[in-house]
């Protein structure tokens, strides 16, 4: 009974994470500007990897490997938004122009 619930939780969390990864990939490919791309990718990567790793930690739960997977989850939750912020900050500091529909139509 408990193991069935854990299997279902693992599969649902992994599918949610895979969906977020797919949305992040589409945003990286289709959005028009660096700022919009970093906006799409930073959030989708954090939630996607976080959901998949949480599901895998539930899957191996009584085993001590689950702690290692939770450590990886903590690393992803800390490092992915920090990397996104650093990228956007570097772009803004060096003067990369954001995309605007109005200036493009006038030009």
């Amino acid at each position: 009974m408990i193991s069935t619930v854990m299997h279902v939780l693992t599969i649902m969390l992994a599918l949610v994470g895979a969906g977020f990864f797919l949305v992040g990939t589409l945003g990286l490919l289709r959005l028009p500007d660096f700022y919009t791309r970093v906006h799409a990718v930073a959030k989708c990567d954090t939630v996607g990897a976080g959901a998949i790793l949480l599901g895998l930690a539930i899957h191996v739960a009584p085993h001590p490997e689950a702690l290692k997977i939770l450590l990886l989850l903590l690393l992803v939750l800390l490092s992915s938004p920090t990397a996104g912020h650093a990228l956007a900050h570097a772009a803004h500091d060096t003067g990369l122009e954001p995309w605007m529909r109005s200036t493009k139509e006038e030009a």
Partner: protein
Amino acid sequence: MTAFFWGLGTFLLLNAGLCVWRAFAGPTSLDRILATNVVGSKALVVLVLLGLAFERSLLLDVALVYGLLNFGITIAATHFLETGRLKGDWQR
């Protein structure tokens, strides 16, 4: 459950392959750094899935080091851009 892990890993690898196109064609160097960061974080999840599918806990340690290196590469590249050691093609 192992078959599900294999399928999920294959899906993530296909996603990473699509992201490589942005790393190849990105108009600015920041796009390329962002795309390699995304590919790295997908590879981290794939490494964990492989470690569970093969029942090798060594691959979890590899994934941990991989994530730390990925973070360090991104921070170093953005630091070089901010201090002016690297120049993007949008700067004059």
